[in-house]
């Protein structure tokens, strides 16, 4: 019998600390599968951000740097400028990328910083126990929006891919999800493209993965997937928001 599915080599033999049904694990695996397929684990340096995925430095077998909250794009910039031929990626959540690290994110993108960004959008702060995120939906109940996110006082959720797609330095801005086998396959393709863009020196690639947080959403893993489909995807439509390779012109 042939193995049709097993743990990728770029993923360490360490159990994830994530809650049951948390999609971080799926996305970690996809990143590792892509590193395996491209054969670049040995050249890769990952940057872990602050949030639930902070321990990702334990999970990937490549070299890893742990950055301060929101600063992963700046740390990745320093790494990439020192190691232009290596593969540098960040793995960031919504609070990290779209709130405290929005300046670093926008400027890394506009500089066309040749890095790959994996962005987990689950509309909540997981690690600190479920506070409102910059991507929490209008009306969404969180620990710090107990009456539901009131857009009159808390403003509107940020659509990151749409925003970054307006910047000339962005090579790829694609939103995917991992709620089904078909979507997981699509997500992997997008992640692979993000890494290939870097290898081909195309600039900043961001793959936004609409994800779940069953624990802080107060739902079972199955219910969380349904909530994602019913509430997240209408506000955050899946799709390619920018792709320089599709536009025919390389930057």
């Amino acid at each position, binding site marked *: 019998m042939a193995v049709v599915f097993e743990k990728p080599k770029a993923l360490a033999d360490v159990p994830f600390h994530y809650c049951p049904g948390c999609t971080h694990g799926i996305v970690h695996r996809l990143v590792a599968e892509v590193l395996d397929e491209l054969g670049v*684990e040995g050249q890769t340096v990952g*940057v872990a951000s602050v949030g639930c995925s902070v321990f990702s430095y*334990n999970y990937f077998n490549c*070299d890893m740097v742990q950055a301060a909250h929101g*600063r992963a794009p700046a740390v990745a910039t*320093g790494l990439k400028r*020192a190691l232009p031929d290596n593969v540098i990626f960040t793995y960031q959540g919504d609070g990290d990328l779209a709130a405290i690290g929005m300046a*670093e994110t926008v400027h890394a993108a506009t500089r066309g910083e040749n890095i790959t960004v994996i962005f987990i959008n689950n509309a909540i702060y997981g690690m600190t126990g479920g506070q409102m995120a910059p991507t929490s939906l209008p009306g969404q109940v969180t620990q710090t929006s107990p009456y539901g996110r009131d857009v009159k006082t808390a403003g509107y959720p940020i659509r990151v891919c749409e925003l970054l797609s307006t910047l000339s330095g962005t090579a790829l801005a694609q939103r995917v999800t991992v709620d089904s086998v078909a979507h997981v396959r699509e997500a992997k393709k997008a992640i692979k493209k993000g890494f290939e863009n870097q290898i081909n020196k195309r600039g900043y690639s961001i793959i936004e993965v609409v994800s779940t947080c069953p624990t802080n959403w107060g739902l079972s893993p199955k219910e969380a997937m349904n909530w994602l489909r019913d509430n997240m995807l209408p506000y955050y439509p899946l799709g390619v928001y920018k792709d320089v390779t599709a536009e025919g012109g390389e930057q």
Partner: protein
Amino acid sequence: MAEKVLMKGNEALAEAAIQCGCKHYFGYPITPQTEVAAYMSKRLPKEGGVFLQAESEVAAINMVLGATSAGVRAMTSSSSPGISLKSEGVSYIGGSDLPALIINVQRGGPGLGGIQPSQSDYWQATKALGHGDFQLFVLAPSTIQEMVDFVSLAYEVGEKYRVPAMILSDGMLGQMMEPVEFPQKKEGPIAEKAWATNGHQNKRKKNIINSLYIQPEELENLIKERYERYAKIKEEEQRAEEFMCDDAEIFVVAFGASSRVSRSAVMQARAEGIKAGLIRPITLWPFPDKTIEKNVDKAKKFLCVEMNMGQMVDDVKLVVNGRKDVEFFGRTGGIIPTPAEVLGEIRKLAGKEN
């Protein structure tokens, strides 16, 4: 002997960094250090290096963290308000055991303060540049030549002990010009760092640069190990200059720009028959307590002269420990004390009123 050239402090320091093999500069404009960035932007691209004007001081210091993690010599420079912004990244650099070079060309504070020279970041540099238990190796130049010489020293000590290093300069030294000489270029490349995250190439175990340790015992042990390195730095890396100290009775203690003024005042006091001497701390952390201690017995009084409201004076008092009087004279807000003012203070301590 290399040729002497007339250079501005900020530019001389930048050139020295390039000659030390620093090819990665990340900064953000702020007076009075902007010449460092401007010089780097002109020179580094021609040296095959990277000059990057970051979106903020916060980003710049984290870019330094990233580049340093890769194993290269990197630096950033700023002035007081910008250094406060960098403090987050400096703490992470300290907590990740990374060497890095940080330049503070001090101006008056707090807040936006002013743009004239100051030494009011002494506490920040030596006690608390960021959260947590950690220290930086801090050097205080007093001449443009030292702005040059201390760059290689900061890199060497920082890399040897894996601690961040700071050159604590000020707006006067940054802006003034003096003739300087650059050391002959060093042989060979900068040593490989076994801890660097530069891709394991499937040849070694993976490296992790990290400052997070959830288990308190693990974190405590790590910090204790770091403090053993700090103890070694205290033992081996203290530096101070003694000027006319052999038979002195009134000891002026001053660093950086205020030590230049104090040196003139000490010479004038000597001309008046007052036995004054100058102790000039060169390393601010570790504070040169051995040099102070050596002179406590013969001293009648100490006079700390600073461009702030009295910060280093605390460290002098800690060493003197009540055995002798330690007085303070300072100007702040961007004002440099005059030699005449300092001489007046020396006279008072010598019992010779003006």
